[in-house]
């Protein structure tokens, strides 16, 4: 946002607008309230509303772009003003006085936090005003874990991982392996067409060559045949170690 400087001549109601210095509309209100030079508990909210509306009007006059929340606050204060000036009608809604009090509380609370925040950071601080022993000899607390890792480190590691995940370029490589799922489906489809004991190898597609793909296909079909056997859909037979494996459909289910 731009900064407008008046040449020291601040006419009545004219404001020096430097929005960079503010932390939002409540902060502007607090600054304006301080200008009333009274205890915040006795601040004139009506006067404050007028000051803020003048501030926003000025910002618009010099075509300063105001964030939406500054305008929302202006609209709300205009509403509050009307509630404060007009006789109360609606019993349902909080009265203008209640609203004014709530705003005053909000300002007091923020001011209190700003004050104690300043007091906190002005305290003698470790590493700035007060120093620990420069060369500790390294006695560790017994209960302390020997692994040095803070929650911050852990969360940081996770978020860095997440960022990589969100923005990393993913290239899914074409699968070079015959998957178990495919083998399972292939075998299940073939199941109905099984005449009798058939060797497992004859089911494996692309049997030519011993490429990684065909070897993975064999392995996948083997695991799939075990799964189907476990499910009671298939019978397996093997004469001896390393000899061909035969399979057939479970017949009992048919009869």
């Amino acid at each position, binding site marked *: 946002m731009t900064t407008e400087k008046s040449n020291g001549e601040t006419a009545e109601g004219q404001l020096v607008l430097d929005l960079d210095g503010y*932390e*939002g*509309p*409540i*902060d502007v209100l607090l600054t304006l309230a301080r200008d009333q030079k009274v205890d915040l508990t006795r601040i004139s909210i009506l006067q404050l509303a007028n000051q803020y509306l003048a501030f926003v009007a000025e910002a618009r006059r010099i075509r300063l772009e105001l964030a*939406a*929340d500054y305008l*929302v*606050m202006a609209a*709300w204060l205009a509403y509050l003003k009307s509630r404060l000036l007009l006789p109360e009608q609606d019993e349902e809604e909080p009265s203008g006085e209640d*609203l004014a009090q*709530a*705003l005053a*509380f*909000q300002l*007091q*609370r*923020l001011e*209190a*936090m*700003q*004050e*104690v*925040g*300043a*007091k*906190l*950071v002005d*305290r*003698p*601080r*470790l*590493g*700035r*005003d*007060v*120093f*620990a*022993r420069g060369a*500790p*000899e*390294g*006695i*560790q*607390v*017994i*209960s*302390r874990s020997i692994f040095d890792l*803070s*929650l*911050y480190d852990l*969360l940081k590691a996770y978020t860095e991982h997440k960022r990589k995940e969100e923005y990393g370029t993913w290239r899914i490589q074409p699968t070079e392996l015959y998957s178990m799922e495919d083998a399972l489906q292939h075998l299940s489809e073939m199941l109905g067409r099984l005449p009798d004991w058939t060797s497992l190898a004859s089911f494996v597609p692309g049997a030519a060559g011993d490429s990684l793909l065909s070897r993975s296909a064999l392995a996948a079909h083997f695991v799939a045949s075990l799964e189907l056997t476990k499910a009671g859909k298939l019978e397996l037979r093997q004469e001896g170690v390393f000899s061909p494996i035969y399979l057939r459909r479970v017949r009992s289910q048919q009869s």
Partner: protein
Amino acid sequence: MNPELRLLEALIFASAEPLDERTLADRLGNGVDIVRLLAELKQDYAGRGIDLVSTAGRWSFRTAPDLAEKLRVDAEVQRKLSRATVETLAIIAYHQPVTRAEIESIRGVATSKGTLDILMEAGWVRPGKRRETPGRPLTWITTDGFLDHFGLESLRDLPNLEDLKASGLLDSRPVLTSIQGGAGGAAASEEEG
């Protein structure tokens, strides 16, 4: 000098971290009145260039605060904290456990990036329990490192705590729901987007 006091002095002196009373008592052996010994040791150092201090119930030696200026030459230049960061730290310290929405409602603005994460990186705040309200929002609390850094014995020693409590200013509920709703809603959608 009494041997237990000597060992106590050496233990605290040698440690890279503040030590709690239980650890110290364990190291000194049975039947030692650790509280009395610590008081005695603290007394020994009163008025010297080094103080024996306790933060969050843990004891350490620290240089005397009044020497700050003369020692500071050596200190690394610390990153200056932004207004938003200081305000947020104060709100967490005084209102804890406090949710981000409450922090925003007190400050009247959405929390910008580089506020909570800086406080967390400094080791001063951390997530506390989730609030058992709809949405189960995470709360934020201060750490022992916070007490240590700011030389506070406990959270009860926060400046002006009693005054603020008495005046009711430590109520973190949103007050201007009508206007906060708008600002808060916009902020939330921005965050989630």
